[in-house]
């Protein structure tokens, strides 16, 4: 496994820039249109057409808005990079306990990596040494 990575702050900046560059204009365009829908529903004779997409959107998205709020409040994003290591650590444990002939032929099995790195804690084997979060 390659552990040589760019420093983490570079990655954070890239992620933040992409989030801003993509989400802000998207949110602006989308939000403006959605408000227009609501205005049309209230003021236009044909506005009844706007009801079904608005309801559909609210039905699909309102729940996710609450879910997002719950995720923020319950600390799901505190250590935002942690789950990607936890997932690989769990895979390594599961593959390590599996019979050798069940680990496939494409190098996807992580269990065999344990043999060479047995003294390291799991997170050390997957975590970027430059990463601080």
């Amino acid at each position, binding site marked *: 496994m390659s552990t040589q990575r760019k420093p983490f702050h570079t990655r954070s900046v890239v992620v933040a820039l992409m989030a801003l560059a993509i989400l802000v204009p998207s949110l602006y365009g*989308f939000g403006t249109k959605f408000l227009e829908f609501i205005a049309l529903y209230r003021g236009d004779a044909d506005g009844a057409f706007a009801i079904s997409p608005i309801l559909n959107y609210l039905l699909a998205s309102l729940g996710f808005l609450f879910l997002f709020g719950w995720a923020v409040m319950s600390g799901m994003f505190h250590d935002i990079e942690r789950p*990607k290591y936890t997932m690989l650590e769990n895979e390594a444990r599961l593959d390590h306990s599996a019979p050798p002939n069940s680990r496939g032929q494409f190098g996807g099995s992580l269990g065999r990596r344990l043999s060479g790195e*047995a003294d390291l804690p799991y997170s050390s084997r997957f975590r970027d040494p430059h990463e601080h979060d």
Partner: protein
Amino acid sequence: MIDKLAKAEDPRHEQLVDEPIVVAYFLLALGYLALSMLAGLLMATQLVHWNPLNGIELLSPGRWRMIHTNVVAYGFLANAFLGALHWSVPRLVLKPVLDRRLSWFILVAWQVVLLCTFFGIVFGPTLQANIAALERLPFSLGAQGIEWGETPTWIDPLALAGLLLVAVNFMGPIVRTKGPMYVSAWYFIAAFVWTFLTYAMGNFLPQYWLAGTSAGAVGGLFIHDLVGLFVTPLGWGLVYYFVPILLQKPIWSHGLSLVGFWGLAFFYPLNGIHHFLYTPIPMFLQYGAIISTIAVEMVVTTVIVNFFATIWGSGRQLITNLPVRWFYTGMVFYGLTCLQCAMQTTLTFQALIHFTDWVVGHAHMVMFGVFSLWLLGIMTYLFPRLWRTEWYSKELLEYHYWLSSVGLLVMAADLILLGPFQGYYWASLQPWEVSVDGSQPFWMLRVFAGLAMLAGQLCFFYNIYMTWRRSRAQGVPVSTGTQQAPPAEVAPQA
């Protein structure tokens, strides 16, 4: 020393994954893939006047076109996704599905839904026209008049109940997970909720409550939500799970993956009306769909950037690791199809390509070029693990990959190129037959591209059969998901 790393309370693979159900779903999915491709071939030969079954009502291309689309969506994709989920969800959250018996019940019930759909589409109209008792039924035995929702109305409630059970069975272990969730789990949760809501919206609202252009608008939402809210979150969830495992390194940025997920959650649901631009649906709705579609395409770039940043420095895996190649080929097609989508939803572009084969090429690139390729990559990775033996032939695997991907590339390029030709034929107000004649060379090439893709799948089927025979000869056991870990093998806490 190694054993000290495993904790005594750690679950073992055998306790989590019911391997026979994964195999069963995959084999069923591949059977439906073969059926769907044969139906597509029938339609393709009809267009070039080579249909050898012409005049047989039950094999009429009009009915088999619906078999082609429905079987690939609900037969191949749904079964393959369920198989992959039965592997990945328990391993991801370290908990088995809610109830293993429920899993098998769902498997059987879903095949009943599919067989009823097949029966209804192929035999329903004929039976109802010829049997007086059936003619008096207050509903149609045949296809429902909704694109991608042709599942007969009488089977819709059962299909919806099946989707609810799927959600319950998989959400049970996911919601009991403690701590921050990996992005795949977010995608899976979204898919289970959205698929249920999308199916209900698309199959019931236009059938029982809405009419005219309102029903058309909801139909448009349904078509696109089926791709974006059922297939896409499951596909991305699985790719986010399998790619880091295969590359043996974590995804480049988990934060960026969550930007993609929440962007999809909030921008996607209004997209669908872009299927009906220039129709009597009010223009403000059409404009709204265009804007939100472009917003989604921008969000999608975060996902693609993330995966290519992940493989950066491990590019050789694209040559040496076949499942990785399947996944990244699908991602290239995904990037292309999303770029295409952002262009084709503009009114300027739509004026040319609306109703043309451009859209058919786009649909094939999405459904086969992206999601089918990912699922075939997952199967390529998992069959040797499930059967505890290596593939019978790596050469046949290569044939499978190249025939599938090049065949799809040729088919999609051919149809996408044909689209503007047809658009210009129609815009020049020449007789309809002129556009049909002009389409013939493209349609002929499409037949051969389809045959290449079918040949690729036949290589895969033969390879699977021979691999299974090899595993039987070796007498390897499989996990049923119920075994208890032998106490002697459970290591003490470090």
